[in-house]
């Protein structure tokens, strides 16, 4: 046997998954020692990330698809007999995203989880979660995907309940488990129905055989799989789970749930509609995706405005951004998918940053209640700056990364509206723009309630978080800025190859099952290589803009300094009583800070019936959430039976 063969890059996908599971196993054995734990965890996540980065050259830039049959069991007689991993640009894109988020969350966990019990179990579950999600996106076999979905649901539920004395952790974990299991059962039922039709579980072979033979059973399977993956991505109507789970989990796990698990659900949906059923040419399927995405966008951002817990608010925003991605991916144009994937990447980065800052605040003050916090910018200046970068990114302020991807999404939806002549897509553009400004409002509220304002007496002794945590947050912040300043490079190297891969179903099938398979099996329905075009209708050059802004800022600062901008009183030692106090109408300062719940009264007053209705609807009872899941499933089954 040629031993050097094991170093070939073709094996890297399986290595990337196995080091994570191996790390989890080794931590069970050697986890008592703190250094052993940290070194093992760091080595696992770092080597997983390194393996995936090494794959960028052949897969992303070279356009190759790695079809890896486990145990060397290649297809025989035109039938797939082994379990396969298939890494094309789309899988690698999501894989890189996942590996980066896992790496940074792991670095953050080292200091964040110091004071907890059962830390070895935390790292074990963490690495299992990471391995499960990576296995999901790199897998080429439908049942393997289901197994990975179960692994990651399990690990995520256990990690949500990890700090089981925290308020609501057990409750959140139970609700997540119940509705998540409904979703997983749907995925399994869908997989089995597909197996019953064609007796294969291999993704590529299914993609070749299913589209030609759509009968009632496969339509039901489509609905089941779609609803199952929507559960994993926490779209409407499964969004209350997200709010509960994110709020209760430790911050590094919230990063994974919002940045990684939701992406796995999105990956499943994209594979389902573009590859497995190849039905995106139908206007009704596009409508379904865009409708679910837009409703998620809008409902979740309005729910977020009404929250008074920091992490729950971030969780609702997370789902709102996922709504953006799904709306863009549902357009079935190359620009749309590219924009959606770019936004998915940005979402992982800025949402991860925001959750980590929320974790930093929780770590030091012990609470995330917006009504109780205030004035933390004086005690935690670095955290404040990092939070402001994250908040600017999610609101879409130029030149951060949120703006670059949102800009592309607006162009994609408007272009689609013009091309198809359907004014409904224009409505999506308008909803997206309004959601963006409501997101900004929400983060202004959080900034005012948590970081500015008056510092309550209980937090006088709060200090800045340890360097390890700040370093991890800094990595995300730096990535936010870089991906915002150089959107051309990001699209050329990462999102365009992935978007191209979405339209290359024929190549996907042929690379897996042998050349010419797609044409021979599918006959006239074989998907031709579509021409993809990424034409933008607008202009945006972030580096030039930033240069002009810096020159202007320099000029203005110079003028300010010359005008003696900051004239401190010369006799600063002589304290004039009351000179540096806040003005409160001339009365003794019985301080009243505008509470987080009272901000934006003008907006909330006009929408009070809607907010009341939504509050009553999200009742917190697990039966209601399960009822929504069942209703969504029924609607999906009926809709897809009629439409396909």
């Amino acid at each position: 046997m040629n031993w050097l063969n094991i170093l070939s890059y073709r094996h890297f996908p399986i290595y990337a998954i196995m080091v994570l599971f191996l790390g989890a196993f080794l931590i069970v054995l050697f986890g008592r020692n703190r250094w052993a734990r940290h070194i093992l965890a760091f080595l696992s996540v770092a080597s997983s990330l390194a393996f995936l980065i090494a794959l960028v050259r052949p897969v992303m830039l070279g356009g190759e698809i790695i079809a890896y049959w486990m145990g060397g069991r290649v297809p025989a007689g035109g039938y797939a007999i082994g379990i396969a991993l298939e890494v094309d640009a789309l899988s690698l894109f999501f894989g890189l995203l996942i590996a980066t988020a896992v790496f940074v969350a792991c670095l953050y966990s080292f200091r964040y989880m110091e004071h907890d019990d059962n830390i070895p179990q935390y790292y074990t579950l963490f690495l299992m979660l990471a391995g499960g999600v990576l296995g999901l996106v790199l897998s080429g076999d439908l049942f393997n995907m289901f197994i990975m979905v179960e692994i990651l649901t399990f690990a995520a539920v256990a990690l949500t309940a990890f700090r089981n004395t925290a308020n609501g952790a057990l409750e959140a974990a139970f609700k997540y488990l119940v509705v998540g299991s409904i979703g997983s059962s749907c995925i399994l039922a869908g997989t089995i129905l597909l197996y019953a039709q064609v007796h294969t579980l291999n993704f590529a072979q299914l993609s070749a055989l299913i589209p030609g033979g759509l009968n009632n059973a496969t339509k039901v399977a489509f609905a089941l799989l779609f609803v199952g993956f929507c559960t994993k991505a926490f779209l409407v109507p499964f969004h209350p789970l997200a709010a509960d789970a994110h709020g209760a989990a430790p911050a590094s796990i919230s990063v994974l749930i919002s940045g990684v698990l939701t992406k796995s659900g999105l990956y499943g949906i994209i594979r389902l509609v573009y590859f497995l059923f190849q039905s995106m040419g139908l206007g009704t399927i596009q409508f379904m995706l865009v409708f679910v995405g837009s409703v998620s966008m809008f409902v979740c951002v309005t729910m977020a405005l009404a929250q008074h817990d920091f992490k729950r608010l971030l969780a609702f925003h997370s789902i709102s951004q996922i709504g953006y991605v799904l709306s863009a991916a549902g357009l079935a144009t190359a620009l749309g998918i590219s924009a959606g994937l770019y936004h998915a990447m940005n979402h992982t980065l800025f949402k991860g940053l925001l959750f980590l800052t929320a974790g930093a605040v929780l770590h030091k003050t012990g609470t995330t209640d917006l009504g109780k916090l205030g004035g933390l910018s004086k005690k935690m200046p670095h955290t404040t700056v990092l939070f402001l970068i994250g908040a600017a990114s999610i609101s879409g302020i130029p030149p951060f990364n949120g703006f670059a991807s949102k800009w592309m999404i607006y162009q994609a939806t408007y272009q689609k509206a013009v091309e198809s002549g359907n004014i409904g897509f224009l409505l999506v553009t308008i909803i997206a723009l309004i959601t963006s400004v409501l997101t900004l409002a929400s983060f202004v509220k959080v900034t005012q309630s948590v970081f500015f304002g008056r510092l309550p007496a209980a937090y006088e002794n709060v200090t800045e978080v340890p360097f390890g945590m700040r370093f991890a947050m800094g990595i995300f912040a730096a990535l936010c800025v870089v991906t915002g300043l150089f959107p051309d490079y990001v699209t050329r190297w990462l999102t365009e190859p992935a978007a191209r891969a979405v339209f290359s179903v024929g190549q996907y099938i042929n690379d897996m099952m042998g050349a010419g398979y797609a044409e021979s099996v599918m006959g006239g329905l074989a998907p031709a290589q579509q021409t993809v075009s990424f034409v933008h209708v607008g202009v945006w050059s972030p580096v030039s803009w930033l240069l002009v802004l810096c020159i202007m800022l320099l000029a203005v600062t110079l003028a300010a300094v010359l005008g003696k901008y900051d004239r401190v009183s010369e006799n600063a030692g002589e304290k004039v009583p009351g000179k540096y106090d806040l003005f409160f109408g001339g009365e003794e300062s019985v301080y009243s800070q505008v509470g987080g719940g009272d901000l934006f009264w003008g907006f909330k007053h006009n929408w009070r019936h809607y907010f009341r209705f939504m509050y009553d609807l999200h009742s917190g009872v697990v039966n209601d959430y399960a009822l929504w899941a069942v209703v969504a499933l029924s609607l999906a089954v009926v809709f897809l039976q009629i439409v396909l």
Partner: protein
Amino acid sequence: MPQLLISALSYLGYILIFPGFLFCFLVGLLLAGIDRKLVARMQKRVGPPILQPFYDFFKLMGKETIVPAAASRTTFLLAPLVGLAALVVLQLFIPIFSFSAFSGVADVIVILYLLLIPALAIILGGAASGSPYAGVGLSREMVTVIACELPLVLVLLAVGRAVGTATGSGICFSMTQIVQYQIENGSLITRASMIPAALAMLLVIPGETGSHPFDAAEAETEICEGMLAEYSGAPLGVYKLSHAIKLLTMSSLFTALFLGGIGTGVIVLDALILFAVCLVVTVVMISLLHAVTARLKIEQIFKYYWTVVSGLALISLVLAWYGF
């Protein structure tokens, strides 16, 4: 080498002199002064001299800056500068008829987002000051921004679609192309379908600049000017300057979108025509409204913008969509 030097110097000239900092400074404060004088005259008062904002600015620059003990010092002092810089940079990307200093950098969507930055700067400055009046003020300012955003979005989409169908590309987001189309084919305001959008844009201008009757965010009589309550000295001067420059920016945006065809091609004349148009817009929409109306409550502002003004813009959008 001299070529590079010349182009660098000319860009620097654009940024600092025209249509950059110096131009904005002079014209903005002049417009603010004329506005104050006219409002006073309409209310049968004498009013301050027209150059009063200049006097105010230089006086404030010389005063002492008191940073409250409860404030976050860096953000408190930095926010006004960032707001001013962003606003002037925004002015650079709005074409003055056929003259466009930086044409390949920003389009209509970018301008929409860049308009948020000055508002955000004043909000952050107010939040940093730690005053309870600032809390109320920034809440109202944010609601005003949300309120003005929907009609502005609809107007921009309508204009983009109108120009796009006419040039055959479907949609057009580039500012220079919109102005170019108007120079060749006549201003957009002459098309009947664009008149509701122009009206909507005119109504958005007092909201964006925070003028009466939409100035609940800076209500002097209720919340001691809200976010500026704790500001004094030079930072306050910079905020007043930003407020004045915003008058120029919003009016020139309106001109570029709807009146792009009345330029001549000579830069000096174009600048004068722009000044004249800005003057008329300021007089009509800002001074006149200021003098004759009472202040609206914040929920009334929100309702007004999201029903009446958005309705006008929506009519234009639908008409432009179907090609009228």
